[in-house]
C-alpha cells in the first residue's frame, strides 16, 4: 500500500517545469478566457495527482471570491478610465471622486482572476509534490541548507507534539492563558527543549559521519564572481528597460555566470545522494504538457495571431477575443490529468 503510493510519484523536476510554464503563461496574457482555461487545467491536474497527505488545503473558493471582489472594487473605485459610466462620484472627493466605469471593474476582475490562477497553480504544485522530494532538488552547493530544511521537516511533528505536552503540563499546574504574559510558560519550555534537542541532534549527526565540524569561508575568487554576476544581473535589469537588448544580454550573462559558479562550487561537495532519479515515459508526457504550450505561445510564430493575448477592456468594454489554437495549447497544461498514475 505504502510503496504503491510512493511509486506513483513523478520526478519533481517535471512538476517544477509544469508550474513554471503555467505561471508564466498566466502572467503572459490579460485575456480572462485564457486565464480561466489555465485555472481549469490546474484544477484537473490537482484532482488527478494530489498526494494523499497533501499539505494544508486553503479554503480556495472563499479566498478566490475575496480576491476577485477586492480587486474589482479597488480598481472600480480608484481608476476612473473607460467610457461606460456606472455612477459618478463628486469630483471633490479625494481619489474616489470621478466616474465609476464598467471597464475599470472588468479590468479589476481580470486581475483578480489572474492572481487566483497563479495561487491555484502554485497550490497544485505543492499538493502534488512532497516537500522532502522538493528539498532533494537543492543544488549540491546548498547541501547544508537543504539539510536544514529536511531536519526542520522532521522536527515539525515533533515540535507540535511537544507543544501539546507543554500545554497540558502547564494547564494541570493551574496555568490558564488569560493574557500575553501567559505565553511565557508555554513558549519558553518549547524553546529550551528545542535547543536541548539541537545539541543531541548535532552529536548524532557527527557520530554518523556528518562531515564538517568547523566553519569555512568562501574563497575570495568565488566572492568576486558572486559580486560580478549580481552586478551584471542588476545592471542588465535596469539597462534593459532603457537600452533594450544590450541590457537583457548583460542580465542573461550575469545569471549564467552565477549558475556556473553554483555548479562549480557544488562539485566540491563529494556527498552522494541516495535517491535515484529516473525519467520514464510518464515524466516525458508530463514535460511535454508543460513545454508544448510554452513553445506555442512564447515565440512570435508568423501564423499565430497573438493580439488576443493582450485583451484590454479600455476604452470601451467588449467581449474578449478567443483564438482556438491558443486555447487548445493552454488546455494542454491539463494533459497530465489524463494519463494513468500506475502507467
Amino acid at each position: 500500500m505504502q510503496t504503491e503510493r510512493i511509486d506513483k510519484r513523478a520526478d519533481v523536476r517535471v512538476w517544477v517545469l509544469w508550474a513554471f510554464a503555467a505561471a508564466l503563461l498566466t502572467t503572459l496574457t490579460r485575456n480572462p478566457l485564457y486565464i480561466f482555461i489555465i485555472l481549469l487545467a490546474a484544477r484537473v491536474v490537482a484532482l488527478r495527482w494530489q498526494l494523499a497527505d497533501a499539505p494544508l488545503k486553503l479554503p480556495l473558493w472563499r479566498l478566490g471570491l475575496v480576491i476577485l471582489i477586492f480587486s474589482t472594487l479597488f480598481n472600480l473605485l480608484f481608476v476612473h478610465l473607460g467610457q461606460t459610466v456606472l455612477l459618478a462620484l463628486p469630483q471633490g472627493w479625494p481619489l474616489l471622486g470621478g466616474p465609476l466605469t464598467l471597464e475599470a471593474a472588468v479590468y479589476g476582475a481580470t486581475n483578480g482572476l489572474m492572481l487566483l490562477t497563479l495561487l491555484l497553480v502554485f497550490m497544485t504544485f505543492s499538493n502534488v509534490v512532497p516537500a522532502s522530494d522538493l528539498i532533494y532538488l537543492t543544488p549540491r552547493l546548498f547541501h547544508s541548507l537543504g539539510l536544514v530544511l529536511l531536519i526542520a521537516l522532521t522536527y515539525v511533528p515533533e515540535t507540535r507534539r511537544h507543544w501539546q505536552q507543554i500545554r497540558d503540563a502547564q494547564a494541570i499546574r493551574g496555568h490558564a492563558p488569560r493574557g500575553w504574559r501567559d505565553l511565557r510558560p508555554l513558549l519558553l519550555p518549547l524553546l529550551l527543549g528545542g535547543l536541548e534537542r539541537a545539541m543531541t541532534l548535532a552529536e548524532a549527526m557527527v557520530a554518523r559521519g556528518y562531515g564538517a565540524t568547523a566553519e569555512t569561508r568562501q574563497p575570495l575568487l568565488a566572492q568576486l564572481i558572486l559580486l560580478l554576476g549580481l552586478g551584471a544581473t542588476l545592471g542588465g535589469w535596469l539597462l534593459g528597460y532603457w537600452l533594450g537588448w544590450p541590457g537583457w544580454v548583460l542580465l542573461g550573462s550575469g545569471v549564467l555566470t552565477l549558475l556556473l559558479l553554483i555548479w562549480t562550487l557544488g562539485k566540491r561537495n563529494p556527498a552522494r545522494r541516495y535517491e535515484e532519479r529516473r525519467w520514464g515515459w510518464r515524466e516525458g508526457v508530463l514535460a511535454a504538457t508543460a513545454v508544448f504550450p510554452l513553445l506555442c505561445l512564447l515565440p512570435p510564430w508568423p501564423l499565430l495571431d497573438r493580439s488576443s493575448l493582450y485583451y484590454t477592456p479600455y476604452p470601451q468594454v467588449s467581449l474578449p477575443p478567443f483564438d482556438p489554437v491558443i486555447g487548445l495549447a493552454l488546455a494542454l497544461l491539463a494533459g497530465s490529468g489524463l494519463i494513468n498514475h500506475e502507467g
Partner: protein
Amino acid sequence: MAGEGVIEFARVTYTYPQQAQAALREVTLQVQPGEFVLLAGPSGSGKSTLLRCLNGLIPHLSGGTLQGEVRVHGLNPVAAGPQQMSRHVGFVFQNPEAQAVLDRVEAEIAFGLECSTEFRPRRQRESRAERVAAQQAMHARVAETLTMLHLTPLRQRPLHTLSGGERQKVALACALALRPALLALDEPTSQLDPQAAAELLHTLVRLNRQAGLTILLAEHRLERVLPFVSRVVYLENGRLTLDAPPTEAARQRLPLTDSRLRIPAQKAEGTQNGKIGSVVLAVNGVTFRYGSTAVLQDVSLTVRAGEVVALLGHNGAGKSTLLRCIIGLLQPEAGEIWVNGRLTRGRAAADICREVAYLPQNPDDLLFSESVAEELAVTQRNHRLAADETAVNHLLTELGLSQVRDAYPRDLSVGQRQRVALAAVTITQPPLILLDEPTRGLDGAAKAALAAIWRGWLAQGKAILLVTHDVELVKRVAQRAIVLQAGQVVIEGETAVVLSQPSLVGYGSSEVYNLTADCRPQTAGPIL
C-alpha cells in the same frame, strides 16, 4: 602502542570546558573483539563521557581537555576525527526523539551512507555506470540493514508515526548501516517501555553472539542486562572502580541494584500512621472514546489517603487517557470521577488540579523560570494563592533542594529536575498526587530519593496514584496495583498478589529478561 583490543584506554583524563572537575580520571580499559561490556554507575559518573571518547565526539564536538591515550580499532579518535571514526564505531543515543535527521525510515538509514567516505566518488569525473553502481550498493546496504533488524515493513514509514521502541531500533539500524566493528550505546532503553527495552536488548545480544559485534552498553537498569554481558565496568565520579565478569561483579555487592529503594516495613494494612484513610480519588465506571474506538471502558478504581496505588499496563492500554480524565483535560463519556469528595464534571482543569498534583512524564515541560524558588512561586500565582516563602522553603528542604534554591532549574541533574517539577506541582499541598512514569531515566540513587519523599507524604495522609512500567518500583512502594488492558481493569488487588498473576508474566517483571539466555535467532536470515 597498538594493542590487540578494539578499545585501548590508557590513563585517560578528560575535563569539559570551563569545568574545574574532571569527568574522567585516569581511566584505563581494554576491550577485546566480541565482548559485550556493561558500563554501569550512577548518573554523572562519566559513562556518557567515556562513550563519547570512543568516536571522537569528545573533544571534537565538546571541546575541553583530554589527556592520556585512546585507541579504538587501532586509531586515535582525536587525530582521526568523528567522521572517520563513524565507520568503526556505531553510536546510539538515549533519546529516540532527538537523534533522527530525516523523516522517513529508509532515508534516515541512508543518511549515514550519504555522509560516509565509503560511497564517495573515487575520482573527480566518474562514469554513469560507476554512479549507478554506487547508488545500488547504497540501496543494497540499506535493505540488508533493514532485514537484519526486522525493520523492512517500516521502510517507507514517516518516523513520527513510529513508537519509541521502533525509533530506537531505527537509530540502531543507522549506526549499523556503516558496518562498524564496535557499537556504543548510551542508555538506549531508558525512555522505552519494558517490552520495547527487552526487544532492543534481545537484538543487541543477537548481534553480539551471532555477528561478533563488540558492544559497550551504558545502562541504569542493571538487572535487565546482567545475564547477557561478558563484563561489567563500574564508574564512580569519573573513576573506574570495578572491572569484572558479571558474577564477580554481583559478588562485590556494589550498588548494582536499586536496593536503597525499599520503603521499610509497609504492608497493605499499615502505613506509619497506622491505617489507610478516607477515599481521595474515586473513579466510577468511566468510559472514554476517541472517535469510535473505546480507549476506556467502564473503569473503576479508588485511591485512599495514605496509600500508593500502582497503575500498570502496556503502552496504549489507556493509562494516560485515564490520567487525563482525572485531571479534567478530557471529559469522560460516561461515569463519574470524585476527587477529594468533589465531582470533577464541568470543572476546569486548573480548578481540579488545586486538589491534584500531576507530574508529567517529561518534567522539563514544566520548567521555565530563572530559579527553583521562582518555579514554585509560579504555581502559587497560577492558583491565585498568596506567595508563601515559608511554604516554599519548607517544601524545598523536604525535597532536598534547599541548596539549589536559586539555581537555574535547567542546569540541574535529571533527578534534581524531577524533584523541582514535583515541588512545582505539589506546592499547593494537594491530597492526591498522580505520577506519570516518575522514574524514567533515573539512576538508583535518584529513585531512592524520590521514594523517600513519597514515604513522607504518605505519612502526612496523602494519596499517590503511580503510573509506571517499573515493576521493581511497584513491588517496593505500592500497596495495591491495578492492571489496565485495552481500556479495562483486568486485575486489581494487593501488589504481591497482582504481580504474581500468570497473565502478567512477560509484562514487565524480571522474567522477561531471562528468556533468552541462550539466544537463538528468531528468523533465519543474513546477519552482517
